[in-house]
């Protein structure tokens, strides 16, 4: 019952988004020209038609780190809510957890995973 408003809001927003998408199709002029839908690349012909190839591996590493630490965050959220009723036991438990977490962060730091991955770093 709490979420009824949220669901209605979701439906309304999806509707608005669809309207926004079709506005240009409805009101815009239609004057097709040969190169108007050509991908932007400084005005020169494309060397490669598709840009969907490999990209910088540093982003992949960031994604891995996000997965690890966001899972830790998911474990910490319930603890923050009930910490008031857990007392000293809760504090020591979570202090150890955060200590291990920090150790993991320091390990990644030492390994150089937190550095931005330049491709020419060793040169």
């Amino acid at each position, binding site marked *: 019952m*709490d*979420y*009824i*408003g*949220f669901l*209605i*809001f*979701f439906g*309304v*927003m*999806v509707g*608005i*988004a*669809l309207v*926004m*998408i079709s*506005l*240009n*199709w409805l*009101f*815009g*002029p*239609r004057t097709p020209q040969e190169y*108007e*839908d*050509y*991908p*932007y*690349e400084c005005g020169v012909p494309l060397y490669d*038609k*598709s*840009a*969907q190839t490999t*990209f*910088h591996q*540093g*982003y992949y590493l*960031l*994604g891995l*780190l*996000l997965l690890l*630490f*966001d899972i830790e*965050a998911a474990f*910490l*959220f319930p603890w*923050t*809510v009930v*910490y*008031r009723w857990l007392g000293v036991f809760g*504090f020591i438990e*979570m202090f150890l957890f*955060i200590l291990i*977490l920090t150790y993991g*962060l320091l390990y*990644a*730091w030492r390994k150089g995973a*937190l550095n*931005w991955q*330049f491709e020419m770093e060793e040169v």
Partner: protein
Amino acid sequence: MESVVAGVVIAVIKILVILGIVLGVGAYLTWVERKVAAHIQRRPGPMVVGWHGLLQPIADGLKLITKEDLFPRYGNKFLYNLAIVLALVPATLVFAVVPFGPEFELFGYRIKPILTDVNVALLLVFGLGSLAVYAIAIAGWASNSKYPLIGSMRKAGIIISYEVAITFAVMGPLILAGTLSTYEIVQRQIEQNLWYIWVQPIAFVVFLFSLLAETGRVPFDIQEAEAELVTGFTVEYGGMKFGLFPLVEWYVEVLSLSAIAVVLFFGGWSPINIPFMGFVDPLFFLGPFSPYVWFLLKVTVLFLFILWLHWTLPRYRIDQITEIAWKVMLPLALINIVLTAIIAPVVWR
């Protein structure tokens, strides 16, 4: 049955109010930003359309609507349009859990000025916030052009770095409040006579940095980088489709995250706080409207602060931005959690 109908009617009214705030105020914030930016740089800004350029947002909107509907020829049409839906919908849905004021009674119904007062509100905020990454990554990928791809990857990298910092930062206030509901967090701050900013300055700084990074504001606007990337992942978007991305990123998201920051750190709708003593309300003469005015005032001040930063600071490099997130912000947030856990009993008493 009657209560269900009343609930739906009240929900629809609240949605209309939120839509007015988000889309109306959101559109007019473009004018505010241009004026503020202009006066920071000692020039008048928009002056032609209407009095002091007051009709400028409408003129801009009309211009955007009447552009030709273009689509990059090698792109993926479905994903291209899906990115717009994914950008607009989650960012606006965050307002569903923003409490604008205290509960009041009208025609015998008890109404909370918050669309859905659920007990996992903050998890909802971060769940929806994470969806912004998909919008940006998909927008860059579906355009199938090199500059958008680079821009979207940069932006996605920054968002996921600061996503971690912001989730650990909000845990400080959560420990003190002991609840995830935004409405309850404000109530606890009023009961404890304490804005959490007084005991959570570190968390607030980390939150503010993450806010700037996630919304692509200066000094973290590397995905824009007009000089090298020609506005990043929006290069292949035109007309209203292009207009939506800056609207969502720069205004809707900044507003929603500012509102969440006010709820977490500045006591929502409560007046000025003296730590552990009580509240002073210089706006007492407004009577029942004073909480709403306070809430809007705090959000406005935070928004103007972000604008001030935007038009004053230079830009960081991408490697500096992500390294700040992991090497400074994350350790600070972790230390803050432990410190908060130690001082929390003093706040609860």
